[in-house]
């Protein structure tokens, strides 16, 4: 079809030039964009001219051969950074056709990757960045900024020393940034900043205690539910920042070890965020890359999330059976009274307005697919309308935007863009493709569990950003596979994998930090002993749902 369109387009210019079309593909027969295709011809006056075209996103290119021109040397040359240069000889029939002004198709032209010095530089920089982030030796934003800067510096040196060292141009690096993700996160941060100042979390947590009637298993369930719902609408880190201190105070008031309540909460936060497109940064990345809608996230992931939450609640009540059953202390009436006094909505007007704007945003997120409004635009519209409505101190609101996180995402995209540019992503994709073959079941198993296990030890945001093109490759090469199934497997693995270790999710580190400041430290080993079995339970249940959803229905 694309060939017909290209040939027709060529015919429209037939009085000026004759189209020579072809498609550049890689060894896996996937289209390759940005390949410069040249053909040297001799024009009617006998002068030499080099014709040039660049392959599009679908791999096709069109060269317009002027009337009366003859191909010199009869070869097409294909070249691009990080690919081996290839020459394609035109046969006699093709050359004759061109001279007679008839369109010519050269079909698919495979081109091979080449490992340049830039490849190894990029791999080294990526590993360094992951190491710095994973070991918390450096702030994640600074590590990603360092990574992107090193790659650009290597490219600048390469421009004057050797082209093999050039990773990409500055414009290519900017093109790799997914601005939809950046603006969506920024908009949501502004809305969250208004909500967090209203005191709603203090009120909710005290409401949880009152509703539990003093039954700890019930208190754990209600707190988990509140945390999961909050993290589905806000981000997990904000949820735990606001919920952890009030949970510790409730635990102190009723003389219970706070960790008995905090562990189920943070596990629920990491799972609950999965059910919406805006609940976790990894979901935002997946949605933006794949184009999967808010409604699709909600409908296809929520049942699995509910199953996983029930599983974690059951696991937590068993894991903390002794602590939940044995309460050696007394409930402090004085502290409970203090809790109740603090459990008031500080800014009811702001909360009400945030609620209305939040509902409007939710409606647009759900209906946005049909209205063709990008999620980032909805978040920005929501944030702007809320700010105009409540007229807060604008400087405070600007300060409430976590600019370091935005810098992290921007520079992370640049680093991942470099991985794609030099061909590492292609190699990973081919490796995974060989592993799973044409089996959707095997692909789902590998993606879910590999993502979950890897996300326990390396940060899930860069991991997800790296894996997205791999999943994109698999969905385009595996026959009959529903693309959503593989993206949702990645979402489940990356989000729930965060429960496996202390460093698996930022929400874990924040919770541990607050708990430690309150006299209840959580060590790496302690978190692993509680979190890893929870990972196995929750991922198994959510994966079971995905299997039913995509293999049975």
């Amino acid at each position: 079809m694309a060939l017909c369109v290209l040939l027709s387009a060529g015919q429209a210019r037939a009085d000026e030039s004759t189209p020579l079309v072809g498609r550049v593909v890689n060894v896996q027969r996937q289209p390759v964009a940005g390949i410069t295709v040249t053909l040297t011809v001799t024009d009617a006056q006998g002068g030499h001219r080099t014709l040039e075209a660049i392959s599009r996103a679908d791999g096709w290119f069109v060269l317009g051969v002027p009337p009366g021109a003859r191909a010199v040397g009869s070869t097409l040359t294909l070249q691009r950074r990080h690919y081996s240069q290839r020459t394609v000889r035109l046969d006699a029939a093709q050359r004759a056709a061109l001279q007679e002004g008839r369109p010519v198709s050269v079909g698919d032209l495979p081109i091979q990757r080449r490992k340049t010095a830039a490849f190894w530089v990029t791999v080294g920089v990526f590993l360094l960045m992951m190491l710095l982030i994973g070991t918390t030796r450096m702030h994640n934003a600074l590590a990603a900024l360092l990574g992107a800067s090193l790659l650009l510096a290597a490219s600048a040196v390469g421009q004057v020393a050797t082209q093999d060292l050039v990773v990409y141009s500055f414009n290519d690096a900017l093109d790799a940034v997914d601005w939809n993700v950046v603006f969506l996160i920024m908009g949501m941060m502004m809305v969250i900043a208004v909500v967090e100042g209203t005191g709603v979390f203090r009120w909710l947590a005290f409401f949880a205690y009152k509703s539990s009637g003093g039954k700890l298993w019930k208190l754990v369930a209600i707190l988990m539910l509140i945390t999961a719902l909050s993290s589905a609408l806000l981000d997990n880190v904000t949820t735990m920042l606001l919920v952890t201190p009030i949970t510790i105070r409730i635990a102190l008031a009723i003389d219970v070890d706070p960790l008995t309540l905090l562990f189920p909460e943070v596990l629920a936060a990491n799972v609950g965020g999965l059910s919406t497109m805006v609940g976790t940064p990894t979901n935002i990345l997946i949605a933006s890359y794949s184009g999967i809608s808010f409604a699709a996230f909600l409908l296809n992931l929520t049942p699995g999330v509910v199953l996983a939450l029930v599983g974690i609640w059951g696991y937590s009540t068993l894991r903390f059976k002794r602590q939940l059953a044995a309460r050696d202390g007394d409930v402090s009436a004085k502290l409970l009274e203090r809790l109740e006094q603090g459990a008031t909505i500080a800014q009811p007007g702001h909360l009400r307005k945030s609620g209305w704007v939040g509902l409007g945003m939710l409606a647009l997120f759900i209906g946005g697919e049909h209205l063709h409004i990008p999620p980032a635009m909805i978040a920005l519209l929501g944030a702007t309308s809320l700010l105009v409505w409540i007229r807060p101190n604008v400087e405070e609101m600007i300060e409430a935007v976590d600019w370091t996180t935005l810098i992290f995402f921007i520079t992370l995209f640049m680093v991942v863009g470099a991985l794609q540019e030099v061909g590492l992503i292609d190699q990973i994709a081919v490796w995974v493709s060989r592993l799973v073959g044409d089996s959707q079941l095997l692909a789902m198993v590998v993606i879910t569990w590999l993502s979950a296990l890897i996300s326990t030890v390396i940060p899930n945001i860069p991991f997800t950003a790296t894996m997205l093109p791999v999943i994109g490759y698999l969905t385009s090469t595996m026959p009959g596979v529903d693309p959503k199934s593989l993206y949702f497997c990645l979402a489940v693995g990356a989000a729930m994998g965060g429960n496996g270790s202390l460093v698996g999710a930022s929400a874990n580190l924040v919770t541990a930090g607050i708990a430690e400041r309150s006299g209840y430290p959580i060590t790496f080993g302690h978190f692993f002993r509680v979190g890893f079995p929870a990972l196995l339970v929750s991922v198994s249940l959510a994966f079971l749902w995905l299997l039913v959803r995509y293999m049975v229905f």
Partner: protein
Amino acid sequence: MEEDTKRPFTQESESEGEVILCPVRGGKQSKKTVDRAVELALAASARLVFLYVVDVDFLGFATVARVKVMVDELTETGRFTLSILEDRARGRGLADVGSVIREGAIGDVIRAVAQEIGATLLVLGRPIRTPGVMSFSASEFDGLIGWLQTDAGLRVECVD
């Protein structure tokens, strides 16, 4: 960050006798430290002052935008903790108990408050190692103890 003004410290109170400063975070780890501080205060008929330091350095690896909200929440949690500790100390028969909450770097705050209240003895627990979330390393702790003993002339009792 405002100081807890429930029991203000005055020059008069400093001159009354020994003042024991006990920086704590609460929790099981603090129990031995608090017990020891109460024991010493009872024995010397001293004033006991608990100190809770709000420090939000741990936010450095996650986010920096929510410091104010976090400081407010940790301050309220600190008040809870100190309220519990004061009640326990009084329950053991100690009449003169107070508390201070401050925001800042732990070592700096301890130095400042010790000078402000005219502390004569510092009772504190050795920090346990919790990788990834600790902001007060063993070397910083030893450095602080050294400074308090030599430069500030304080007696220091470490509880392991």
